[in-house]
C-alpha cells in the first residue's frame, strides 16, 4: 500500500495537492462495500462506525446496520492525532463495546453533533482507498479486554477488576500507542526516512514523550537517586 496518501503524512507535508484518485462521494460507497470483509476479530462491532456514515448513503450491504444503534457520540482521540491529521479533528464514536454486539435497539438517542457528523462525512467521502483502510484500522483496532484484564489482575494482584476499568485502560492504552506511533512518524520525517517504523524511532518518540511529561514516572521510590 502506498504511504503517500496517509492522512498523517499528508497533514505533515501540508497537503498541497489532493490525492489524484479520490473521487468525491463515490469513494465512500466503494470503500464501505469493500470493508464488508472484517478483519476477523471485530465482526459485528465494526459496522457501527459505518452505520453513522452510511445513514445518509443508505448502504444496504451492511448486515447489522439496521440493528446497531451505536452511539454517535463523538470521541476525542489523542491530541496529537487531532492535531496531526486533518481528517481526525472530529470527535467520533469508537467500537469498544464488542461484548454486547448481538442485538441492539435502533432507536438510540444520538448525542452526536449533526454539524460535526456532516463534516466528518464530507471528509470521509473524499478518502482514498488507502486512507479509508487506514481509518478503518484506526477505528476498529483495540486491545483485547480479556488480555488487559489478565494483565491488570497480575499487576494489582486483586481479582476485582471491573469491566469499566478494563475498558478505560484499553482506551487509554490505545491512545498511548497512538501518541507513540505518531511521534515516531514525526521523528522519521525529521530524519527523512521512510518505510516501516523501526525501534529506534519508537525509542526516540518515547524519549520525547517523556520529556513532554506524557509518560508517567516510575511509581517505585528510588533511594539515593
Amino acid at each position, binding site marked *: 500500500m502506498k504511504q503517500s496518501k496517509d492522512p498523517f503524512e499528508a497533514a505533515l507535508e501540508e497537503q498541497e495537492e489532493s490525492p489524484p484518485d479520490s473521487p468525491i462521494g463515490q469513494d465512500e460507497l466503494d470503500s464501505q462495500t469493500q470493508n464488508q470483509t472484517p478483519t476477523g476479530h471485530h465482526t459485528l462491532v465494526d459496522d457501527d462506525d459505518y452505520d453513522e456514515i452510511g445513514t445518509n448513503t443508505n448502504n444496504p450491504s451492511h448486515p447489522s446496520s439496521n440493528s446497531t444503534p451505536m452511539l454517535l*457520540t463523538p*470521541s476525542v482521540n489523542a491530541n496529537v492525532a487531532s492535531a496531526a491529521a486533518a481528517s481526525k479533528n472530529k470527535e467520533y464514536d469508537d467500537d469498544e463495546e464488542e461484548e454486547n454486539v448481538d442485538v441492539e435497539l435502533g432507536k438510540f438517542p444520538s448525542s452526536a453533533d449533526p454539524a460535526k457528523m456532516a463534516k466528518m462525512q464530507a471528509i470521509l467521502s473524499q478518502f482514498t482507498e488507502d486512507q479509508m483502510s*487506514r*481509518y478503518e*484500522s484506526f477505528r476498529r483496532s483495540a486491545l483485547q479486554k480479556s488480555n488487559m484484564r489478565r*494483565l491488570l489482575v497480575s*499487576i494489582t494482584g486483586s481479582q476485582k477488576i471491573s469491566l469499566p476499568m478494563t475498558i478505560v485502560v484499553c482506551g487509554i492504552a490505545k491512545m498511548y500507542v497512538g501518541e507513540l506511533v505518531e511521534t515516531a512518524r514525526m521523528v522519521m520525517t525529521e530524519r527523512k526516512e521512510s518505510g516501516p*517504523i523501526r525501534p529506534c524511532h519508537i525509542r526516540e518518540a518515547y524519549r520525547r514523550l517523556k520529556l513532554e511529561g506524557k509518560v*508517567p514516572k516510575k511509581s517505585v521510590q528510588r533511594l539515593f537517586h
Partner: protein
Amino acid sequence: MSNPSTGTSSKSKVGSSQPSETSFKRKRGVFQKDLQHMMYGFGDDPNPLPETVSLVEDIVVEYVTDLAHKAQDIGSKRGKLSVEDFLYLIRKDLPKLNRSTELLSMQEELKQARKAFEVDEEKLGTTE
C-alpha cells in the same frame, strides 16, 4: 527507568530494572495481533516490523503497569481500586480523560439499551 540504549533484541524488556514489578510471567506477544492493526491505523506500515511491535507492546505494558500501580496506591487509601483512580491519574492529559469519560458514558448507555431491549423481548415473548 527504561534504557533507550537497550539492545535491538525484541526480547528486551523496557523498564525491567525493577524486578518486583515484573514478578508476573510476561507472556510474549500478548497484544501483538491487535497492536499490528492499531499501529497501521495510527500511521505505521500495513505490516509493521515485529521488533517494533514488540517494543511498543513492552512500552504499553510498562505504561499500564505504572498506571495500575499508581492507581492502586491511590485506591488503597480509599479501600479498593476503582475507575476513578485511573481517571484521577490521567486528569492532566485532557484527550485521554475525555476519551475515558466518553467510553464510560457509552458503556452505561449500552447497558441501559441492553436492559431495555431485554424487557421488550420478554414482552414480545409473552404477548405472542
